[in-house]
């Protein structure tokens, strides 16, 4: 998964487990950038009576670097508070929830937003309401209305939303974690079975989303509007973190400074690139210290496994012994000028896992879910849009498709441009406006679908 349950420790702490990070120039508001950080993997929509919520004891953050040192120049912090209206019932709600202040809604969350710029914190808002979870037609009959009411424009120019959404990430986990199987090509696998279409393992599951839409001018180092795609000032790097206080006493307080327990920049990095023994450490590391992991990016284990798992399919990849400068550029520094005509998202020589966005690239009129390798520079790895097929993009990159960009003598295997888990995201219910991720699956309907005989 992009980053769902990707490391041993964080897999036991779902409310602090970042699952996906998206960043893109807002298609309906091209002077704004939208950043979405998802948490809490694999929410079963019917998981009541204590439906999912953010952790009151977790410090959630979205970091932005705008000068290439992989240190945060701007950080948005989000803190949540849960309140119980009626402690004398076991119910999440005691009747239909018709508004965010409905007395029938028992267990609620509100949150505060703090902006830290150049080390100085400024409280932007507090007491902002989250929507309830999507329970079913009796409890949340107008879920869209509830969610829309939880979109909060802030006086400082940003717009925020925090609450449940449908998980927009799509991936065939069932096959990939079964010895690297890809159903469309499993007839070529070392242990072959007839080829089949992909199956989205996350379909029907929800996540908890923190989304913020920010004027571009507030993101550049000098406050300018990014207009030149070839200017370094147009590029920002982003990552999200969750932190817990250093010490917790069971049944008692938490105390001490907040300590990072989860991190996410580029999709699938801690999942696929970082080895098991270092995953927890990677989650606690800052991007400016990522040089220590560079070898794993430049000699990825998956590139070694593909020719073994798919015999005779990747002969050129098998013979490729050079360090993968293409992957280092895509994931650690951004793509410098001269690699892809008319495009760059280079943030400098500091090797750091950040999701990089060239804000001067306008939204695509007809987005290609394969992003840059599909000829659409408004998509991954230039930021990441919800519809971007990051599984196929990264599979193809690791398979050698992008190595030819840095070594013209290399010929990618024919399969490198075709490899996929068989999903394209076209069945996702994304929205055309903020917060873009789809209406969460409701417990009532999803249970009925998943338990039909």
């Amino acid at each position: 998964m992009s980053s769902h349950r990707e490391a041993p420790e964080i897999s036991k702490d779902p409310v602090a487990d970042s699952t996906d990070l998206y960043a893109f120039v807002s298609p309906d508001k091209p002077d704004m950038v939208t950043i979405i950080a998802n948490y809490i993997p694999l929410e079963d929509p019917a998981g009541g009576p204590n439906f999912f919520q953010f952790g009151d004891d977790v410090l959630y953050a979205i970091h932005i670097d705008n000068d290439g040192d992989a240190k945060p120049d701007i950080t948005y912090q989000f803190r949540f508070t849960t309140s119980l209206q009626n402690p004398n019932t076991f119910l999440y709600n005691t009747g239909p929830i018709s508004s965010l202040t409905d007395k029938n809604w028992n267990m609620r969350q509100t949150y505060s937003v703090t902006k830290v710029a150049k080390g100085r914190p400024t409280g932007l808002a507090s007491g902002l309401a989250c929507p309830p979870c999507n329970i079913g037609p009796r409890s949340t009959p107008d879920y869209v209305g509830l969610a829309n009411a939880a979109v909060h424009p802030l006086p400082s120019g940003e717009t925020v939303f925090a609450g449940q959404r449908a998980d927009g990430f799509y991936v065939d986990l069932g096959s990939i974690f079964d010895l690297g199987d890809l159903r469309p090509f499993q007839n070529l696998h070392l242990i072959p079975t007839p080829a089949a279409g992909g199956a989205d393992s996350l379909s029907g599951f929800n996540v908890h989303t923190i989304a913020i839409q920010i004027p571009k001018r507030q993101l550049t180092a000098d406050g300018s509007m990014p207009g030149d795609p070839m200017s370094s000032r147009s590029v920002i790097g982003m990552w999200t973190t969750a932190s817990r206080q250093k010490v917790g006493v069971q049944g008692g307080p938490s105390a001490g400074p907040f300590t990072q327990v989860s991190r996410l920049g580029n999709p699938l990095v801690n999942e696929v690139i970082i080895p098991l023994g270092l995953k927890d450490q990677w989650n606690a590391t800052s991007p400016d210290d990522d040089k220590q992991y560079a070898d794993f990016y430049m000699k990825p284990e998956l590139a070694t496994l593909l020719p073994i798992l798919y015999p005779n399919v990747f002969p050129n990849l098998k013979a490729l012994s050079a360090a993968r400068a293409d992957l280092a550029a895509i994931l650690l520094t951004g793509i410098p000028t001269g690699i892809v005509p008319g495009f760059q998202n280079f943030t400098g020589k500091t090797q750091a896992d950040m999701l990089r966005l060239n804000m001067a690239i306008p939204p695509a009129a007809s987005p290609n879910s394969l992003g840059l390798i599909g000829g659409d520079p408004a998509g991954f790895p230039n930021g990441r849009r919800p519809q971007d097929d990051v599984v196929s993009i990264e599979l193809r990159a690791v398979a050698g498709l992008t190595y030819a960009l840095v070594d013209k003598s290399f010929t990618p295997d024919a399969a490198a441009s075709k490899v996929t888990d068989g999903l394209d995201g076209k069945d996702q219910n994304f929205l055309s406006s903020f917060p873009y991720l789809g209406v969460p699956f409701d417990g009532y309907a999803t249970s009925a679908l998943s338990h039909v005989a």
Partner: protein
Amino acid sequence: MDNVSRRKFLGWSGAAAAGAGLLAVAPRLADGHKPATNVTEPLVAYIENPAGGRISLMAGTQEVVLHDPDLVSRLMARLDGR
């Protein structure tokens, strides 16, 4: 000691010692002593390695690290019932 009075800290910990290496301390104690500082939140003292003589004091989001082998030794003695 930084920020926190050692004498007061010893007093708190003596009243509330519990568990090896991890001592949760209330800011106002049964004997009516008040903390010497303006700490109003629970205070946690963490000794990762008693032989090293270092204590982390944490309250709210603050952490102060002390190097005081004598204090650690006396706290450990309390755990031993001495």
